[in-house]
């Protein structure tokens, strides 16, 4: 167990380092600069030259990289060029918002998705299954349509309340996610209910509900864990489109604005957060596999 953890941790650090390095190179090699036309801050050339010098942007890229990495190892994420405040402070503001949105959406996504998928599988090819399948396909294939429609509703009811503001973006993300999750869950259930051990469970004289929800579902959750591991970082790094449309001050919006303004420290910090989330999502999925399936449990020796 300990050896496994150490191996995983080492691999995780390597991944995060690689992502940060790549992002650093890409944003610095990309066209444009933090000030001047067409993207940067609208400031005079004199101030621009001053900024460039102060942020060390005139130095060779290797020097900048070593400086950045050195600061990072000391826990210093740097100073935002556009926001004129520490990157850590900007993240501290955006992250909780994204977490609140992402966790609400995740719960909605998987609770609803799993429930619908199981229901559909139990009613395979009957009315309930087909109707829900079509609705899910519609929701899943028209996210933009959905996103445009929602703010209109939103405009009528501007209650300055966190929970209320959370409702629409979380519903949007959660429902679109649930539509996909339900399809996975349905397929997984249908595969499992054809297996011999489900017949064994029926032969014992168990209720159909117990057969499906206990014997089949436990097995059909395994492919869902993979999906969870992928969805988790996607939502926790900020769903860019939804955050933008709903003016939700989270990571996605922060990152997009920073990219447009060539605010290098924020962009690399956002990539850092994203890679940490991917690694975390994978770790979480692995831990869940162990809980759900005794065959892949890591031996505690």
């Amino acid at each position: 167990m300990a050896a496994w953890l150490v191996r995983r941790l080492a691999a995780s650090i390597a991944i995060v380092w690689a992502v940060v390095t790549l992002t650093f190179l890409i944003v610095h090699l990309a066209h444009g600069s933090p000030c001047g036309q067409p993207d940067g801050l609208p400031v005079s050339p004199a101030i621009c030259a001053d900024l460039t010098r102060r942020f060390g942007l005139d130095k060779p890229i290797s020097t900048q990289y070593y400086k950045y990495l050195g600061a990072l190892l000391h826990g210093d994420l740097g100073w935002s060029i556009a926001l004129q405040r520490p990157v850590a402070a900007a993240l501290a503001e955006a992250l909780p918002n994204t977490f609140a949105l992402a966790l609400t959406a995740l719960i909605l996504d998987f609770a609803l998705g799993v429930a619908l998928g199981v229901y559909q599988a139990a009613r395979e090819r009957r009315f309930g299954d087909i109707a829900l399948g079509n609705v899910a396909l519609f929701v899943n294939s028209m996210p933009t349509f959905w996103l445009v429609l929602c703010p209109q509703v939103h405009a009528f009811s501007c209650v300055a309340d966190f929970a209320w503001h959370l409702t629409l973006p979380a519903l949007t993300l959660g429902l679109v996610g649930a539509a996909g999750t339900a399809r996975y869950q349905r397929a997984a259930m249908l595969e499992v209910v054809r297996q011999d051990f489900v017949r064994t469970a029926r032969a014992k004289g168990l209720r159909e509900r117990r057969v499906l929800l206990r014997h089949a579902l436990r097995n059909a959750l395994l492919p869902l864990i993979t999906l969870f591991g992928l969805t988790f970082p996607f939502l926790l790094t900020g769903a860019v489109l939804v955050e933008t449309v709903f003016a939700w001050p989270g990571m996605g919006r922060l990152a997009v604005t920073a990219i447009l303004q060539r605010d290098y420290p924020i962009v690399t910090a956002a990539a850092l957060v994203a890679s940490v989330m991917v690694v975390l999502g994978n770790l979480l999925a692995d831990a869940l596999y162990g809980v759900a399936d005794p065959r892949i449990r890591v031996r505690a020796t």
Partner: protein
Amino acid sequence: MTEPLLRVRDLKTYFVTEHGSGTARAVDGVSFDLHAGETLGLVGESGCGKTVTSLSVLRLIPEPPGHIRPGSFIEFAGRNLLTLAPRELRAIRGNQIAMIFQEPMTSLNPVFTVGYQIAEAAIVHQRLSRRAARTRAIEMLKLVGIPDPAQGVDHYPHQMSGGMRQRVMIAMALVCHPKVLIADEPTTALDVTIQAQILELLERLQAELGMAIMLITHDLGVVAGSADRVVVMYAGQVVEQAPTPELFARPLHPYTEGLLASVPRLDAPPARARGRLHGIPGQVPAASDWPGGCRFHPRCPYAWDRCRDEEPPLLDAGAGEPGTHTVRCWLLTEPQRRTARAPLP
């Protein structure tokens, strides 16, 4: 003769075929009795309908594509299982009639401990508490000969060998002390030495618990060792039915004859020991397309015109009481035809 425990009459289980166009008559008018405490062997090649017959008894046929035709009748303890409400049927499944399956590898749920899977039927049917159920599971594991049952109870199926898993399946089936145990090819997936152990175990448990066993197998060797009576199935029908010693001494249906001749024997009489093992030519036809007349006639060495045109009923072979030995073959009406041609190569 006492009342049978399980009475199957004119059982017809049909399936809609893959393309939805035809009907596969997998079981087509099967009748037999199972008496308390006896072992009944149900024998035939793959595709002859024996597994579908056994699954039909507990109504475990997936619907669709399968369905049991109206007019079929499966009586257990005075009630027709085919018309029972789901709730009443559940009270019989796993409690009065239990089943073990061919594949111990896939018939156990991989995510639950074997102890839980054994105890589950007792929890559901007898409302045992968790702790009592666990104690019962340990007892059952001991009964079926799992070494160190107190530890084995917490094992998962993947931690056990095939033979051990089949023992677990048996423990699971017997936990409520059923009156009938349906064993569908219980030893087919196992090594020969393990096969013998499992059969011995079933025999011992039958003596201890007194249940009736319906033993489904394609292996006449298994039947010879453990069954009191044998029902031979071919193409969805019963073709011969007799007490085991009678069947082995006097097989009357050409199919039974062929099956017996295809069993390798060390003590074979010299007439048969010609160095080569006999096989029945051809194979079981598709269930959506049974031949007309006698269903065995395309493979039968004795077949004549009548066999092609007319389907034979089950005829009494006249051994002991009526119905002791029945055969679905026209040879019974014209026995001289059997000697007219030598059946074996």
